[in-house]
């Protein structure tokens, strides 16, 4: 007994070391499927507040380029609307229908604006932290976009902050298709270049060329169909040769992510409920 006690006293730092390592690995492996782990991420109030202050300062540095981008996008959209409206008027001579279309586009979706307060692009599993959380109506599995394209999907939420799994994360898995065709695949990042990602499992008989636009498919309840993701850069065969592997140049610049929109479909709960019933 005495010897045993001596042994424990002599090597107590070994036990402390093993205990601390076990806690660390516990955190590492449980983070993937444990919603309560939100307090060990940058969405807890202390780190969230510090990042919010820092983002408040640094966002000023990007204002000029953000503004220019918005201007360009605005001009482009205005021209498009004008052209479409004219074409529609010529075709139907009906003005009330134009108003109706405008309202119906976003009828099913609620859009919430949020600021990025923390973002990384150089890890294999990147996360984006937003300054809005459950009190603002943001819950896990909502889609996140910015002015240029898709950003990712909300993963964890605390009352004031939320964490997004962006496209640049090995866990990200967004269903996408080639614009103007109905063949779809899913996006997977290889962990290397933050400007490119890959579209996997695109059927071999589909038609896809360099420069084609890749958009969301709209099959899941997260994103509406047709949200811009990027353009096809290179088309190769997948490793097993059964499908195409498309290298996609992302339209979102993750290096200067700043203002984003969180979109939630109003009947998403209903669709998810149905899908879960099938799963059981």
């Amino acid at each position, binding site marked *: 007994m005495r010897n045993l006690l001596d042994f424990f006293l002599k090597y107590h*730092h070994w036990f*402390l070391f093993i205990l601390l390592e076990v806690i660390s690995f516990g*955190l590492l492996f449980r983070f993937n499927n444990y919603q309560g782990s939100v307090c*060990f991420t940058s969405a807890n109030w202390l780190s969230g507040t510090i990042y919010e202050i820092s983002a408040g300062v640094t966002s000023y540095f990007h204002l000029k380029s953000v503004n220019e981008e918005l201007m360009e996008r605005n001009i482009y959209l205005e021209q498009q609307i004008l052209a479409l409206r004219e074409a529609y008027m010529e075709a139907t001579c009906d003005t009330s229908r134009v108003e109706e279309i405008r309202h119906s586009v976003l009828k099913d979706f609620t859009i919430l604006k949020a600021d990025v307060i923390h973002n990384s692009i150089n890890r294999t599993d990147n996360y984006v932290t937003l300054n809005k959380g459950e009190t603002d109506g943001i819950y896990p599995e909502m889609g996140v976009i910015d002015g240029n394209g898709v950003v990712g999907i909300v993963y964890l939420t605390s009352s004031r902050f939320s964490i997004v799994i962006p496209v640049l994360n090995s866990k990200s898995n967004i269903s996408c298709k080639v614009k103007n065709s109905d063949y779809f695949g899913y996006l997977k990042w290889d962990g290397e270049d933050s400007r490119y990602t890959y579209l996997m499992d695109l059927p071999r008989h589909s038609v896809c060329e360099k420069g084609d636009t890749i958009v969301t498919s709209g099959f899941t309840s997260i994103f509406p169909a047709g949200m811009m993701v990027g353009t096809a850069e290179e088309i190769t065969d997948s490793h097993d040769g059964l499908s195409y592997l498309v290298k996609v140049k992302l339209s979102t610049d993750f290096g200067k992510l700043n203002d984003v929109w969180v979109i939630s479909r109003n009947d998403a709960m209903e669709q998810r409920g149905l899908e879960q019933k099938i799963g059981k």
Partner: protein
Amino acid sequence: MAVIFFKRLGWFWLLVLLQALVLNHVHLLGCAMPFLYVYLILTLNVNTSRKALLLWGFFLGLTVDIFSDTPGMNAAATTFLAFMRPSLLTLFAPRDCSDDMEPGIGSMGEWLFFRYILAGVVLHHTVLLAMEAFSFFDFGFLLLEILSSSLLTVFCVMAVEGICKK
């Protein structure tokens, strides 16, 4: 005693904030990342007990983890470094050092301190980056990452040491 504790706590937060707000965004040539916060563990007094070392290491790593959304990774690596530190010191510390020596250029000399830091940093980075590479295993790239990040961290540590302890 309390003064030393609060001085360490000050360093703790300074290094964590520096790591979270500045150094986490540094990614030289796509592979080198500095992890300057290990400076705190490497320069704690020689007479710090092993238990205190381990706890400082664990909480330092955990706080950095919280800020960079990598729960457990930095904590595990830094605890490991804290655990190995006494053995590293017996390897590199000069024979005639006093009991309350603080490892540094002043007390160890530039060359010994450099070797000591390099060994500690390589240990820490090997554990940390190997854990991060779990999902995409590319041995050559991992090795390159460990080497380049270690060099960058050692450079940062020597710079901080040069500025603060001259």
